[in-house]
């Protein structure tokens, strides 16, 4: 299997050109031209970001495509002189995004399973309540949530990131996606487990959760990406600089050091790389998560 060249995937081809359409060849050329030009528009700014991070500050505002001279000064400054430095920002972002991903998967699969399979009074009403929260814009919640967190003492001291985690701990979309997936799993499997003497917990843990792996992956990716990039809630809830996340640090440095572009680009790259790596490996789940949150058959 590994020896064969990667096949071009035959995903629902829509070749609508009628017989003898002479415009077809030209249309293809225009289409490819457009695709390549647009791909360049996506690619070039990121390439420029990487190139600039290896430039000197003087060279950064020149149109030199190869840094002259190539220097690690920008990266070095980002690692040492910036306060907080890249490593600190990276760890803070990882703590928040990692925790939020885990809570969404754990709480989401528990609640999703309950809404899909268990019977209890008020189930439908509670599920509608969950879905209803998707209609509330974050900005409406900005002041009251800040005020609540303040009253709990979470906006000062060393636990400011806990406030962010609490706000993002569970999203309605996580419950929804997992519920839909559990609904699609045939009941026979659970009943077979029950006949084999498996209890409620074993059935959930050993049978249902492994079957729901694709949905769990989609939820995990969606939440990790969202909370890693999240700007709004950290901006409001975190005021202590040592607890800044990467996006927050970027916004802060941008105001502090208007023109230190190599350093700014180094921080930008650090904020982008983890998502890029995840994207290269799990593109499917990124696409599934976003598509499932939207149009469904």
């Amino acid at each position: 299997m590994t020896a064969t060249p990667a096949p071009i995937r035959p995903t629902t081809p829509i070749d609508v050109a009628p017989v003898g359409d002479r415009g077809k060849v030209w249309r293809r050329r225009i289409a490819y031209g457009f695709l390549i030009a647009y791909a360049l528009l996506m690619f070039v700014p990121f390439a420029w970001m990487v190139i600039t991070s290896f430039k000197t500050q003087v060279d950064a505002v020149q149109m030199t495509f190869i840094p002259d001279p190539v220097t690690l000064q920008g990266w070095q400054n980002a690692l040492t002189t910036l306060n907080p430095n890249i490593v600190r920002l990276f760890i803070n972002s990882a703590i928040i995004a990692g925790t939020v991903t885990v809570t969404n998967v754990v709480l989401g699969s528990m609640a999703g399973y309950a809404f899909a399979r268990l019977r209890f009074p008020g189930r439908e009403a509670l599920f509608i309540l969950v879905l209803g929260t998707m209609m509330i814009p974050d900005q409406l919640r900005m002041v009251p949530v800040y005020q609540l967190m303040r009253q709990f003492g979470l906006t000062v001291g060393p636990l400011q990131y806990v406030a962010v985690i609490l706000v993002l701990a569970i999203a309605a979309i996580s419950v929804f996606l997992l519920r839909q997936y559990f609904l699609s799993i045939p009941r026979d499997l659970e009943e077979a487990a029950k006949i084999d003497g498996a209890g409620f917990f074993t059935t959930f843990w050993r049978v249902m959760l492994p079957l729901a792996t694709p949905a769990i992956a989609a939820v995990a990716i969606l939440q990790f990406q969202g909370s890693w990039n999240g700007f709004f809630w950290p901006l409001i809830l975190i005021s202590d600089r040592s607890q800044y996340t990467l996006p927050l640090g970027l916004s802060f440095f941008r105001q502090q050091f208007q023109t230190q572009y190599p350093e700014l680009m180094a921080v930008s790259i650090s904020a982008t790389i983890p998502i890029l790596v995840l994207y290269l490996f799990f593109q499917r789940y990124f696409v599934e998560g976003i598509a499932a949150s939207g149009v469904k058959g």
Partner: protein
Amino acid sequence: MLAGYALIAIPIFLFLVLQIGAIFYALFISFWNWTIGGGGVETVALANYERILGDRIFHRAIYNTLTYTAVVVPLQMALGLLLAVIVNAKIRGQTFFRGAFYFPAIASSAAITVLFIFIMSPNGFFNGVREILGLNPLFEFLEFGPRHSWLGNQRTAWGSIMALNIWTTSGTMMLFYLASLQTISREVYEAAALDGASAWQTFWRVTFPLLKPGHYFVATVSVIGALQVFDQAYIAGGSNGDPNYSTMSIVLYLYNAAFQQFRLGYAAAVGIILFLIIFSATLIQRRLFGGAPSW
């Protein structure tokens, strides 16, 4: 039965406090002269709302947000649809192009905005490229100097933010349209081909109308997103919407009232007004597209 409640307890608690409860709390605060630290000083009934609606900077925020929505939404949708139709056709490198177009949508908005600020700065990449390509006479004609500061000039700052967000979100719109395109059956296209329809006719008479649920969904998501524009405006223009309020959006105005001026009651009232705007926009779209879609 108890197992069910146990499994949903934590999420329901968080939703009740941080979502449903927050709305009522926001409504309550909005009727007060409420400051950070001081809490509720005095009830002011609807005075916050009156003051907001009479504030010239708020008018500017509304104007900016609406022009932003009016420009960004149609362009985003058109670009997303165009990309989806091309990527959905039989082309080489389909996966690559789809992946490349979607990437800016999942990258950090802060990183992309900082990169964009750099590229559009007076000595930045954009001004450099147009000089190399010999496009400067054209820009000269449009009264943009060779070292124009795109985000520093109030004539171009907001338009630049619009361009930035059209660029980053077109990939998301493409994915939504791709999902919608997959739902159209091949037989419809075969029938159109048999009837001798050209590709152009097939697109406008078959594909476009059949995408109606897709249009509805994409338009709704896109409008809601556009009315909430914040990150890019904040990072590029600061909390005052520099230069000269040209990048002041409704959410930025809300943030400014709460965390620069510390007027929480006033800010909560702005939040309620924004919610009403988003809610009515969604209702209007539902009407325009003729009732709720099947999904």
